[in-house]
């Protein structure tokens, strides 16, 4: 652990102040990451949801050059273990922030709206009827298949249903992108109340999204078996 003194955080190796630097400005040794490092900070990105994928990748690759354990094979045990910790954190951050959906989930977790790894599924009320029909069609298909016959009509209905739900997913993704931009704006203009509202909406959209994704996955699995 880097020691915190009156001068702030100091280097574990030379005792000079290091602030939040990854490498000690005085001796160049790698420094530990903070206990609760924020993934946006790890990648040196602004804390916002609408991000350019190419920019994220650029940051990730540039930091990988500096932090990869390959650079520390001849270093001390302490340096190797710090590099392992830092590089793992960098890769975890990149894995989490690379795509919009996990990026939103991460922000929701950090803001206390969602628990880590939690994927609640919520049936969208306006879809209940369609979901009901789909389940019936699925059951029909299964019973028909048990008799060893292919029912072209049932199959066609399933394909249509799957296509319909795929379209819903795309709509939800567009909605998420819009909400993400809204959140960014609200945060940058200090509209905390509005920002909170957008987060709650995103949480709800994500729950619907995972419900529909599961449906699509089930239908796809059935169609593959056929």
């Amino acid at each position, binding site marked *: 652990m880097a020691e915190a003194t009156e001068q702030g955080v100091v280097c574990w190796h030379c005792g000079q102040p290091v602030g939040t630097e990854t490498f000690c400005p005085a001796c160049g040794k790698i420094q530990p990451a903070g206990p609760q490092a924020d993934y946006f900070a790890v990648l040196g990105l602004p804390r916002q949801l609408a991000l350019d994928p190419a920019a994220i990748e650029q940051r990730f*690759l*540039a930091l*990988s*050059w500096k932090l*990869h*354990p*390959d*650079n520390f*094979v*001849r270093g001390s045990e302490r340096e190797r273990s710090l590099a*392992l*910790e830092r*590089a*793992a*954190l960098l*890769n*975890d951050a*990149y*894995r989490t922030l690379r795509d919009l959906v996990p990026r939103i989930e991460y922000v929701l977790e950090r803001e206390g709206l969602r628990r880590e*790894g939690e994927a609640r599924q919520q049936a969208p009320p306006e879809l209940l009827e369609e979901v009901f029909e789909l389940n019936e069609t699925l059951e029909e298909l299964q019973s028909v298949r048990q008799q060893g016959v292919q029912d072209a009509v049932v199959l066609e209905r399933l394909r249509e249903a799957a296509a319909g739900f795929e379209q819903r997913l795309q709509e939800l993704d567009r909605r998420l992108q819009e909400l993400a931009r809204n959140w960014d704006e609200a945060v940058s203009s200090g509209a905390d109340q509005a920002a909170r509202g957008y987060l709650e909406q995103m949480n709800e959209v994500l729950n619907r999204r995972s419900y529909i994704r599961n449906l699509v996955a089930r239908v796809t699995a059935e169609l593959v078996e056929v």
Partner: protein
Amino acid sequence: MARAVGIDLGTTFSLIARVNPATGKPECVPGPYGHPLCPSVVSLDPDGRIVVGEPARRRLLTQPERTVYSVKRLMGRGLEDVQEELARFPFRVDPDSHQVVRVLLGERAFTPPEISAFILREVKSWAEQAFGEPVDRAVITVPAYFNDAQRQATRDAGRLAGLEVLRLVNEPTAAALAYGLHRERRGRVAVYDFGGGTFDISILQLIAADQGDIYRVLSTCGDTHLGGDDIDARLLDLAREEIYRQWRMEVDRWPEALQELRRAVIAAKHALSEQPATTIRLLLPDGAAYARSLTRAEFEDLIRPIVERTIGPVRQALADAGLKPSEIDEVVLVGGSTRIPLVRRRVEELFGRPPHCELNPDEVVALGAAVQADILDAGVRDTLLLDVTPLSLGIETMGGVVARLIPRNSTIPASAQELFTTGVDYQTGIEIHVLQGERELARDCRSLARFRLPVPPLPAGMARVEVRFTIDANGILQVEARDLHTGEARSVEVQPSYGLTQEEIERMLEESIEFAEQDFTERQLIEARLEAETVLRATEKSLAEPEAGDLEADERARIDEAVRALREAMRGPDYRLIRARTDALNQATQGLAERLLNRALSQALAGKRVEET
């Protein structure tokens, strides 16, 4: 100080390479037989001497019960999950094996890491002989699809061989590195690595950055028990069945004959990569001759199901990288099994482009390992490898369901943390079961480790311990725990489910002094003399046959001269000279040997005709 080396510890062959300091290019180190392939075969002589490589391979024919090959198939595996291998390969497993399988060589039992360590020591001695200085640091390659236990077993083998293992590098990644040096290449590359015992597919993105080249693995998939071995086994089955049908003879009951047959089918497999037809020949113990002609078309029909088993992993890797076959810019072939024309055609068909095979598919992995060793050891900073973990890491939760912590194809190192608390008042420990695999249920995944996490005795739900699971750059798991109340680190003893403990490794290191390396030249001399004696005995036997009387005077004179020259060389200390003269004697007796074989064949055919009429 000697440079670090790269070692390809293969199922059938192992190679050692290093970057030549003069040219900056990687080179494989040739062994005492003049080529860089060291058969991954280990034998224990009755006098307690360990023999590795070419001489051990010959002992497969003479002392199969003291000799083992393809031991890589057993690395990091438990007794219950090698049953399939045991049915197909002549491993003699110690029935007293516990979690780590032990293989019997004669009367002694060795673990797969110990046997692999003998192979590593052998190639290490080649390098030391070539460089004239000790070698103590290495990059060792592993199949990309190796799990944690298989990786740990490989690292243990390195340590048992007296090597500091700088890094375990995935074989396809090493191959990409060797190819990258070979020519200017950018874009998305698929490395199809079909070796002796394992199959890997890796999809890489090659990026030119300001600082240098980045080799970034996007996805990997494979099968750690699919390779040329399976093709040999298929051919062997065919021959065994035919021999049984024709002569009611079970070749398996003659281990020597079985090994001869194995050698014959491998020779046929190799021949069919070059020519449209060949013949599998074997002289059976009772003097009958099996001669089976095999066309390439028939061979391809036989092995097609094996080749097709590589296609599923290829599609999975492409899907995981989010790419279609047409989006791959280059396809690279690695591993001896990619010499088979059917394999090449299938890969070309799948990707819609001819694959690259400019570099020797046997050597390319070792060359890449040498490059990585150089990068790590000499601090070369113009290349960066970003590899991935092939399998998802998770822990068992309620009902035997796996909670996924690190998904497959995550760039390594990677980590995940979990918060644990207690369900019972004053509970002092929490059982944690770590698994690797893609299935939902713990029983379908690979158990990596079980451990008991110590917690302070507090009312239920009060204890809060955070556990961090880290997969390091070698693809090996590390576990750390921290008490969130006190901030104290808690030590966690993680005993791998299928690995050696620290104490076992130390004990093996002590025991290995017993097999302390004999001087390289001394070993070569012993082997060369043994080989020479074998050939001399065979020559004497042939000369006693009636055919010897038909030899032309000058042919007979040549044989006698070769015998005399060999005997003279055997009295001296030059193993190279002994080998050269052994080869010369083999050459001189070739005509005689052919005549003897022809007689055996015509007798066998005559016998068959009698039977048929």
